[in-house]
Every structure is written in C-alpha cells, then in structure tokens.
C-alpha cells in the first residue's frame, strides 16, 4: 500500500512539474479518436439489434419484385398474425411549374406493424405520432419534397393520373431506407389510390413488401412455412437479418473509420516514445539516489510502472469522455443512417479504448522504464554514468506488435489489415525519407538566409532525428486533409470536364409502346430533335451454358445483386457510337438469335464468348449464344445496356422504352408539360442525382475529416513532445544568446524560423503525397487524366508553416521568460 501511495504522490508531483502532460494528452487524443468511432458504431449496432423490428416496421417481411401471392398473406392471417402491405417505386410528381422525381411508398391500413409514423402539420412544425396513414386522396411528403415542389399543405399534386392533396409532412418512417442511401425524396400515399394513378404496369420496377407481426412463436412458425414456398424474386427479412444494407454499411464504416482512427494511435506512439525518453533522461539522477538510499531495481521499476499505469488509466478515461463527445458529432453526421433513435452505447468501446491506450503507453514506454532501473547507483558520484546504449527498434517489439494487432483487428480481415499495415509503413517510411532529403537540402540553403533564419534552420538540421519525426507526424495528418479537400475537388472537376457539354442530362423511363409516336411528336412540336427510344424488356438470368445461376454461387456482392434482380434487355440492329466490340463480332443481316454482353458484367458473372445464356421473361424462357463482348463508354450518359439481343429475339415480349436527352438550361417548363401529357413517365435528372451523390460524398468526407482531425491534433502533440524533449537545451542556448546580446525579438524570430521550417517541410511532404495519391487514384481507378494541382504546394507549405510556426513559438515562450543568469548558474 505504501508503495502505491508513494507512486501516487510522485505521480502528482510529476504532473505538477509538467513532466507527463504530453504523454497524457497524446494518450487521451488517441483513445478519444478510437472510442468516438467505437461508441458510434456500437450505438448503431445496438439500435439494429434492439430495435430491429421497428427498423423493419414488422417482425417479418416478405419482399418481392412482383405482387405477392394472396395465399402467402392468407396463411399469415390464418395463423392469427397481423399483416400490412407496402409498395415502393420511383415516379414523377408535379405541381405548377415543378416536376420532381420522388420515391413513392404506398401503404395499407395497419402500417407500420412495429414502430410508428410521425407527421407534422407544416414543414418544420413540431411532429407527432398516432396520425395513422395518409387517407385515400391524400399524400404525405417529406420536408425536402415540400421545398422542391414549393407546395403548401392542402395543395394538390399530380401523381400519375391522379390529383392528390398534400395533407401532412412525413417526419419519421421506421423502415425507411437510410437517408444516406436515398436519392429521391419521399411521398407516402394510401395503397388504395394506386390503381387510379396507373403508375404500376407490367414490367414496372417496384418493390412489394408484405409485413407480418404477431406472437414470436407464431411468426417463427410462419417463417418456416413461407421459407420453402419462396419463388424467384422473393425473400424474407426477419429481425435477426433486418436491414442488411445498413448492417453492411455499418460494418464497412466501422472498419474504415476504425482504421482511420488508428492513425492517431500510431502518431501517439511517436509522442509516447519522445516523452518517455525525456522522462527517463530527467529521472536518471533520482533513480541513482534511490538506489543509494537502498531501493532495489525491481522496486524502482515498480514505482515508475505504477505511476505510468495510473497515468495511463486516467488519460485513457479522459480520452473515453472526449470520445463520447466525439461520437455525438459522428452521430449527428451519420446517425440519420437509421430512423430509430440511437440507444446509449455499451461500455465495451470504452474498455477497448482503455486497452488501446494502455497498450500504446506500455508498449512504447516500458523500454525506457526498464532502462531507468538499470542506472548505476554510482551516478550520484559520477554524473557521466548512465544506462549504456540506445533503445533500438527491437525494444519496441511489444508496442509495434500491439499496434499491428489493433490494425488487423480493426480491419477485420487479414488481407485488408496487411494492406493497411503495409501502406501505413510505406507512407511513414516515404514521408520520413522525403523529410530527411529535404532537411539535407535545407542545410545547404541556410547560408543564404538572415541570421535568425540561419539559426532556426540550423536547429532543424542539428536535431535531424526529432525533425524527421515531427515532419512525418504532421505530414501524414495534413496529407489526408489535403486529399479530402483539394484533391477531391480536383478529381470531381476533372471528371466533369471530360463530359461533353451537350451530354444528355435527363433520362426518361417507363415509356409505353403506344406512347412512342406521341412522344416523338411532342419533341418535334417544340422544335427539338426527337430522341432515340430504346426498347427494354425485363428478364431474369436463369443459366449460363446450362449451369443454373444462383446468388450463392458468387462471392462478389455485386454479382449476387445482379443475378437476384431482373436484367434490362434490349435489342438493336446496329452498334451505337459509344460501344466498341472487343471480342467476337456484331451481327449482320438475318444472322439468327444472338446476344452481345458488356465486358465488365461478363467478367463479374463469369460469362465467356460462346456461352449460351438462358433468360426468363415473364414466364417464357429463351436462350441464345453470346457472340460478342462490348466495351461501353458510360460517361457518354447515353442509354446503354449490359445485354443486347439481335433483332427478332425479344420483339414479342412486353417492353417499355427508355431515352435520354439534353434539356437546355431554362427549358424546365418542357418537363412539366411532358409530365402532364404523359403522367406515367419517370424523368431522372442526372444533375440532381449527381448533386445527391456529391452531397453523400461530402457527408462521408466530412466524417472522415472529423476522424483525421484527431490525427492532426496528434501532430501538435508530437510537436509539443519534441519541444519538451529539447526544452533544457533551448533554455540554455537562449540564455547564452541573450548574454551575447541577442534581443528577445531575434530569439523569437529564430524560434519561429525553426518551427515554420518544420511546418513548411511537412506541408511540402503532404502536398507531394496528396498529389501523388491523387495521380494514382485518377489514373489507376478512375481512368481520368490527372493534372497536378500546383496550388497544393503553396497551400500545404503556407498552412503548415503558419500553424506549426505559431504553435512552436507558443510552446517555447517560457524559454524566453527566464532570466539568463539564473539559467547559466543552474547549468554551471
């Protein structure tokens, strides 16, 4: 007990003396970074498990792309279960001069079976539950749609062939697909109104849900009954597998943000090494004295170990509190992923955070504490004696293993973890090498500088090791921030500039065969060229060369989704200009039934030239060989198809038509007239979709930026650790310089030069790294020409120099306040 009390007392003293603050701050930030992500993913995970039935709006849902058999529902009712129906599809909604694509959801009475709808009288008015569902003849819109259509409560809107009244604002819908993934705003209506709208025709793309709820055992029994009666295009979603899209997004976000958060842990390790080394250097004398006073080696080790453990726990707990605050920011940005309120997090992320903090602290400070106990007692008589040798990389094996373990665990996959470790190692190594090279160049340049700058730059060169560590830490944090701001903008810009200005900006789908000529006339009557109209038949891929196709045969998620859904098939005589045959030949004349497949999807699904594909279109099966593979320029924004059939194969199946055209700016009235004339058409605004995608990207980037903010803060912690490590030296130098007649101003200028130099070097390394990463991303992944943004260099250098320069001078200010005589006397 007395040893613990002694450790505690010494810890308190060390804390007051400022010895351990950097260490504590580094740990707290690292733990905050890890736990903010941990708490957030934990909360969403708990919402998914505790409120799964609310998020489903039921205990079980039968989901299908066609109306479910009446027998399925009858059986549920026979078993005493409650049922409700929903039907969702995209459609145009119009009012006055506005036409807007909306995500329509038609619901039956009883909906939702679990959870509740909330609505408000007017946009931004307080909402309430218990209003049932929209009455027949009425619709509820979300706030976004109210704004886009400039509609007031009570006004009528055109939905298909019906005119319905906007009755209320829909504020919460338990089973809504996450807002993040939603492109179009919501319109909710009564299922009874659907036939009158004439929006649902054969071949329309819509999602049907039969919701079921009741006593758990009855639901389970019904599930078993239904599971074996599912047909193609039907699936069950229960509470244990509810919201797979959110679960997948959450898992991915958890891994990704978790890895991003670990950047701070890696940088914290640097700060811990610096601070622990200084702690060791400053405690050699104390240890020698204690050895003289009869302390055993193990006693000294334990004394300091207990101090560090106490400090680690306290700093980690503080980090958890910070992390809890941080997760609120994440929840505000990404919490709308689900409609249900997020429950409080479990304590598990805090435990993991504290463990991470302790592993970092002990892994990187134990080697120094171990050194400390080895100090010879004779040092009390001979100051020059100390522990021999340096702590090499091998000494940190424990710490490095801990960090590697954390990365692998966060990645949740050995391969990804390996890539991240490799990438992080390479990034650190590259940044360090670049920093070293730049410091070399700097040492040649300093002769040309003024005296203050010469002194400052000389300091960077003289403390090359510490300088490299600081530049590396800062540049990694800055690299990511530059990447997410400047480079991201550049890539968007360069992609947009590859699009021709007259590229189609509207897609029109759901055109019925008898509307082809009226639509052509509609365009001609307004002085516009009639757009090309392409037929579209929906068919399900049954087999490739006789082998039945099933989602479970594919490991790739995209492939699974593709075979589960119906394909859009088309037919054409000639190959269009943005297509290019890369294998086989395009048909000519009356060559018989053939198919041409886009090369990307062929690769995903494992389709080869010559394979026979079998499709089911509305119950009729046909098959034909693949005679060509095509490369498609999707950026042309023209209508294109994955699979095209030769003429004569599909003409007898029910088809709808699709087209794309360029709507000139200021011609929005055309759309309004078109929706009035052809209410069943769905117009997709490419620009609006792009805006949505960009908004989602901004939100994701903002979240990632927030996580990397911790890494950036950690850069400053490393800076302060480095300043603390050189504090005594600086105090002594400043005293000598002042004795030699240097003014305070000159000293300040010298200090600023040194830190601004470090910051400028970091900015340079970060700018080069961000530019290089941008080049890699655009050429390897996005296939876009990349022009290095020369603005990156001044941005990085100036921002780095200003931020680090000022922080450095602030950190050293105490050095200048000490009277030189006192300093020299103490060191004499």
């Amino acid at each position, binding site marked *: 007990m007395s*040893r613990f009390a002694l450790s505690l007392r010494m810890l308190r003293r060390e804390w007051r003396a400022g010895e351990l603050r950097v260490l504590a701050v580094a740990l707290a930030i690292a733990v905050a970074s890890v736990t903010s992500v941990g708490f957030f993913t934990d909360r969403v995970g708990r919402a998914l498990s505790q409120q799964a039935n609310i998020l489903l709006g039921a205990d079980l849902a039968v989901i299908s792309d066609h109306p479910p058999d009446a027998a399925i529902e009858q059986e549920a009712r026979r078993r005493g279960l409650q049922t409700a129906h929903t039907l969702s599809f995209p459609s145009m909604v119009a009012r006055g001069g506005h036409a807007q694509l909306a995500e329509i959801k038609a619901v039956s009475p009883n909906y939702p079976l679990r959870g509740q709808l909330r609505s408000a009288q007017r946009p931004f008015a307080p909402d309430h539950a218990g209003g049932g569902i929209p009455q027949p003849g009425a619709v509820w819109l979300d706030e976004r749609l109210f704004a886009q259509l400039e509609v007031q409560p009570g006004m009528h809107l055109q939905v298909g062939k019906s005119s319905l009244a906007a009755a209320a604002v829909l504020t919460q819908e338990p089973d809504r697909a996450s807002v993040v993934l939603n492109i179009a705003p919501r319109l909710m209506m009564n299922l009874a109104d659907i036939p009158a709208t004439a929006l649902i025709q054969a071949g329309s793309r819509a999602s049907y849900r039969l919701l079921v709820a009741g006593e758990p055992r009855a639901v389970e029994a019904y599930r078993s009954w239904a599971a074996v009666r599912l047909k193609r295009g039907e699936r069950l979603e229960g509470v244990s597998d509810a919201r797979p899209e959110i679960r997948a997004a959450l898992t991915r976000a958890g891994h990704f943000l978790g890895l991003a958060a670990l950047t701070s842990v890696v940088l914290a390790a640097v700060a811990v090494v610096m601070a622990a080394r200084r702690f060791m250097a400053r405690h050699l004398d104390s240890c020698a004295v204690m050895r003289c006073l009869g302390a055993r080696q193990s006693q000294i080790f334990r004394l300091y170990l207990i101090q560090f453990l106490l400090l680690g726990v306290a700093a980690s707990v503080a980090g958890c509190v910070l992390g809890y605050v941080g997760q609120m920011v994440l929840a505000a940005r990404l919490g709308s992923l689900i409609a249900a309120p997020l429950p409080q997090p479990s304590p598990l992320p805090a435990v993991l955070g504290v463990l991470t903090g302790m592993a970092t602290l002990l892994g990187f400070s134990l080697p120094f504490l171990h050194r400390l106990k080895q100090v010879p007692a004779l040092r009390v008589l001979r100051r020059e004696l100390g522990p021999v040798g340096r702590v090499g990389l091998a000494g940190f094996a424990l710490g490095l293993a801990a960090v590697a373990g954390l990365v692998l665990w966060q990645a949740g996959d050995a391969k990804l973890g390996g890539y991240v470790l490799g990438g992080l190692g390479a990034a650190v190594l590259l940044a360090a090498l670049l920093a070293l090279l730049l410091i070399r160049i700097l040492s040649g340049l300093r002769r040309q500088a003024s005296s203050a700058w010469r002194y400052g730059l000389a300091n960077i060169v003289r403390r090359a090791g510490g300088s490299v560590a600081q530049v590396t830490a800062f540049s990694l944090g800055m690299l990511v921030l530059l990447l997410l701001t400047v480079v991201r903008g550049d890539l968007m810009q360069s992609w947009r500039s590859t699009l021709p200005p007259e590229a189609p900006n509207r897609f029109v789908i759901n055109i019925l065969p008898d509307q082809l000529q009226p639509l052509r006339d509609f365009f001609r009557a307004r002085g516009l060229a009639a757009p090309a109209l392409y037929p579209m038949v929906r068919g399900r891929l049954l087999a490739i060369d006789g082998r039945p196709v099933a989602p479970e045969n594919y490991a790739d998620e995209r492939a699974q989704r593709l075979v589960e859904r119906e394909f859009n098939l088309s037919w054409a005589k000639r190959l269009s200009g943005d297509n290019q045959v890369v294998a086989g030949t395009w048909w000519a004349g009356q060559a018989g039934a053939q198919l041409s497949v886009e090369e990307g999807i062929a690769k995903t699904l494992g389709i080869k030239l010559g394979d026979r594909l079998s499709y089911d279109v509305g119950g009729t099966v046909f098959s034909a060989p693949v005679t060509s593979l095509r490369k498609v320029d999707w950026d042309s924004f023209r209508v294109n198809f994955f699979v095209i059939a030769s003429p004569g194969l599909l003409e007898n199946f029910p088809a709808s038509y699709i087209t794309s055209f360029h709507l000139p700016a200021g011609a929005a009235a055309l759309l309004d007239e078109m929706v009035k004339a052809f209410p069943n058409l769905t117009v997709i605004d490419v620009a609006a979709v792009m805006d949505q995608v960009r908004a989602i990207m901004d939100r994701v980037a903002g979240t990632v930026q927030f996580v990397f903010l911790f890494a950036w803060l950690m850069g400053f912690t490393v800076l302060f650790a480095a300043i603390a490590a050189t504090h005594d030296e600086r105090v002594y130098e400043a005293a000598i310089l002042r004795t030699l007649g240097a003014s305070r101003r000159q000293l300040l200028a010298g200090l600023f030069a040194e830190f601004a130099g470090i910051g400028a070097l970091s900015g340079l390394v970060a700018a080069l790294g961000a530019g290089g990463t941008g080049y890699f991303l655009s050429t390897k992944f996005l296939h876009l020409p990349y022009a290095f943004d020369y603005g990156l260099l001044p941005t990085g250098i100036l921002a780095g120099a200003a931020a680090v320069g000022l922080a450095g001078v602030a950190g050293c200010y105490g050095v200048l306040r000490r009277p030189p005589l006192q300093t020299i006397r103490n060191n004499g």
Partner: protein
Amino acid sequence: MQAVALTKQVTSEGAPLTILDRLDLSVYPGESVAVLGASGSGKSTLLGLLAGLDEPSGGKVLLDGTDLFALDEDGRAALRGRLVGFVFQAFQLLPALTALENVMLPLELAGAVSARAEAVAVLERVGLAQRHSHYPRELSGGEQQRVAIARAFVVNPRLLLADEPTGNLDSATGERVIDLLFGLNEEHGTTLILVTHDEQLARRCRRRLRLESGALGDAANE
C-alpha cells in the same frame, strides 16, 4: 567497517590504469575519518566502493561483518538502505518531492510504517520544521543540504558517507552545515567517512588520511 586489499583498475585508452592499489582501511564504530586527496586521486572511487555502489577489481569491503561484494546489487542496495547514509556535494534531492517527502523516501523504500512521524522529527532537528512542504528548488543551498543530512540520518545509519558536503556552499553556510553534521554524528554514534580536499573541514575529524598513488597514508602530521 573494513576494506581489505581493495583494488580498482580501469582500462584507459587500451592501457590498464590502477586507481586503488591493494588499499587497506579499518574504521571503528563511532570514529570519524577524513580522506584528503587531490582531484583525480581516486577519492570518489574509494567512497563508491565503500558504499557498494561500484565493484572492485580485487579485495573486499566488510560492513558490519558482511562482505559487500558477496551480495548482488539488490542485496547491497538493501544493506545500504539499512546501514548507510549519504551526503553529497550536489545535495541530490529528488526535485519532484517536497522536503518532507525527500526525508521520508528511504524509510518508505524500506517499507516503514511510521515514516512521516520520524521524518518530521528529523526535519525539526535540522531546523527546517517550517519548510516541510517546500520543494528543493524553493530552498537555499544550505537548506537543501540540511534536508539531505536529515534524509541521511532518518534511517539511523551505522555508517555515514559524505562527499565534499560543503563543496557547493559558501564558507559561513558550510560551517553551519558541518556543525550540524558532526552534532548529529555524535548524537547517533554514527561512523563517519568524509571525503574532501578542504583541510579546514578535515581537521574536525578524529583521523585524517591522504589518498595518493592508490594508497592511503596518514595525514595527521601535515
């Protein structure tokens, strides 16, 4: 306390250099001995060996009948903690601890229960009752050395080793510190070995020895 044929050799630039050459020394309980010598004569080496802080090349040191170098380093540390007190030229107080905590430290390291009461009593004895909660940097040189003396005596050592205890103090302060040191020495009946090059100070010891060419000679008649 007895040193027998104590030898210390170091290798300097490849050539062996003998600092202590088969040195013999016997000090009796309660005796006070001054070891004089020029800078570099090996005074500090001798003191380090007598305290078991360093290992000799040959010979042995018996402390209260125990052969110091038959013990391992931790064993010697435990023995030091029980039997030996130190006073240094540079005081060597722990900067992070207050005056009182510095004095308590050796007792706490030995696992004593009433550390506080004993430390308070000794601090009172050295005249620093009012300075308990001051940190070393808030004390003058003389006060720091008095804290160091209190720390040395708090364990009731059988042997007190002092290395130039007045080296960092002006002569008037040094005088007062020395009075205190000898006063306590007498009260506790401690054996005192004092290393110095100050003849004035050496004269206050009962026996004076001079270290020269690795051997001790009588300096009483100089």
